[in-house]
């Protein structure tokens, strides 16, 4: 069971995605790159308050080709989407305690990019989100959400 946000954990998420996509009747051929920005909000122990951890995820034909963690934006990488939100909310999603769609609808996690694709490929997006939120047994070395004081 990998620790959250470690290379092993991302490998596991990647496998979970790819396993699930394989079950879909049709997958889009598009390739796109997503940045996930996890902002230290004073509650998550995994990102210092005010800091941002940036992960890039590359999807090709529905499957995850690679991921990487960056210290800062890499201008050479052309992003298609950017998801930004408080660390404790990302943690809660990864723990399967919060729903990513709710987080987007409520404005907690902001989404930037061409929403048409996300809407048209709603099924696949659902699968990706499920894989992220429920696909991996995760360990929480610094504590597991909900943290004290987090409702």
């Amino acid at each position, binding site marked *: 069971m990998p620790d959250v946000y470690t290379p092993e954990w991302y490998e596991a998420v990647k496998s979970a995605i790819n396993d699930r996509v394989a079950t879909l009747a049709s997958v889009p051929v598009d390739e796109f790159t997503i940045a996930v920005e996890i902002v230290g909000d004073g509650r998550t122990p995994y990102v210092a308050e005010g800091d941002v951890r940036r992960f890039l995820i590359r999807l090709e034909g529905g499957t995850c080709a690679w991921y990487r963690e960056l210290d800062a934006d890499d201008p050479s990488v052309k992003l298609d989407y950017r998801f930004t939100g408080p660390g404790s909310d990302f943690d809660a999603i990864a723990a399967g305690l919060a729903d990513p769609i*709710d987080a*987007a*609808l409520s*404005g*907690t996690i902001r*989404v930037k990019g*061409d*929403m048409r694709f996300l*809407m048209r490929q709603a099924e696949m997006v659902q699968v990706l989100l499920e894989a992220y939120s429920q696909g991996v047994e995760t360990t929480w070395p610094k504590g597991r959400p909900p943290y004290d004081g987090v409702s």
Partner: protein
Amino acid sequence: MTLKDTYDAIIIGAGHNGLTLGAYLARSGLEVLVLERRHEEGGGLCSEEVTQPGFVHNIHANYHTFVDMAPPVADLDVRGHGVEYVRPEVQMASIYDDGTALTIHTDMDKTLASMARFSEKDAATFQRLYGEAHGFVDLLLGTLMYQPPLSVKELTKALATFGVEDRSEFLSVKLRRETINQFLNRHFENDKIKAHLAFHGAVCSYTNDVAGLAIGYPLLVGKIDNWHLCVGGSHRLAHALWRDLAQHGGVMWSDADVTDIIVEGGRAVGVKTAGGLELHARKLVASTVSVEQTLLEFVNPKEIPDELSQRVKSEVVHKDWSLFSVHMAMRTFPEYKAAEFDPDVNRAWVVNLGIDSIERLNADWKSIRAGNLVDPQPNAAVNSLYDPVDAPEGCTTGLLRQFAPFALADGGEGAWDDMGRWYGQKCIDAWRRYAPNLTDDEIIDWSVFTPHDIARKLPNMVRGDWMMGEISLANMLDQRPLPELGQYRTPIDGLYMAGSTQHPHGFITFGPGYNALQVIADDLGIEKWWSRI
């Protein structure tokens, strides 16, 4: 000196959509020419001293609701070009005939307190609706308004897949079968609150009794406290957009009345003007005026399929009501009798007068659609409450707006010229009933702007249709204005539609111009520097 007559892009119409598209393209390195028929750029962004010098009246667009989310505001540095926006603290009010009043504030707690005086239950419902809408409003409006449109079917399917219906009390797909009236009746109990909320929809052109428009209503509520005033008149925004265009090498010509779009080999390659100029476009021609002007007047009929011409003639639908305005130069601010009930009404930017119930509004619509003038219950905007420069020292401007038919049952639209002053006086009398201090002595001068005047001043607003196309479920998203034109492209290569005939619609949204830009960028391979993610 020979006139430069060839450009990369020629844009017809210097309204905010034409200027926005032009400025982005100019910033992308294209040589851009924007042609405007009038002597002023801006289209509906026109501010004029129609009463007396020093009184700046917004003849058309007065409310800017999307300034905090429309990407061009930042991308084109609108504020850097001198535009000052104010978001009035007391945004809007309804005053009822029994002397009570409801006020909408930028401070939601105050709005809820005002509502609770009529119904605590409705205040709680509104809080839920607003809270929920406010969360998704940016995501959904960003998704829906600032990108080329998806179909209702695609949207419905996606919302179902994401299970949105289960998560949101107010985002149900059922809304696409409801009127705003039905939505309000389902969720609210108090007639006055419902009347205000129904009026709010109508003021945004989402007529409260039209089936299907409930789909957009939660989003309207999400922006209910987000109306902005452009200091010094809405025309300032036009200057700002033009300035951005010109600073990046683009050109706007006023008094350049396009008569023809030149098509060669199925491709739009230029335009001709009434002044006899022939101008060439290397890459594209974009029209921001009406579908009728663009495809029936400017383009030779043989260049488009007969079927499309027929559909433009018979299927492009316009609003079945328009707006009658009275512009006033005054010596004072209105002092409402209802201030005894709620002092904040005297600070409300816009006040709806005497609409006590949805039924009253419904009866008005019926009458207006039959071409009749109703007993006026106008809404009254006093920009001077929040604009320090729109009137001379110690004076104020007033703007009365009344829903009205374009063509009168008795005499058609031409009859407006004889009726205007008379009806204007009735509107002023109506205002005075609620604000008795607005006596003749306090009114320096006033001038009317009838639905017929809208069409005469801005002919792209066919039949006084200030949204440039009916707001209805059938004329929304990719169906607007016709399915084959819904993605900003036309059957003619290199000819784009980029005005308010397109999704999302009229209003100062910047949406049509911005969305047409995305399609044009895709077609021409322009790097989308503006959407760096």
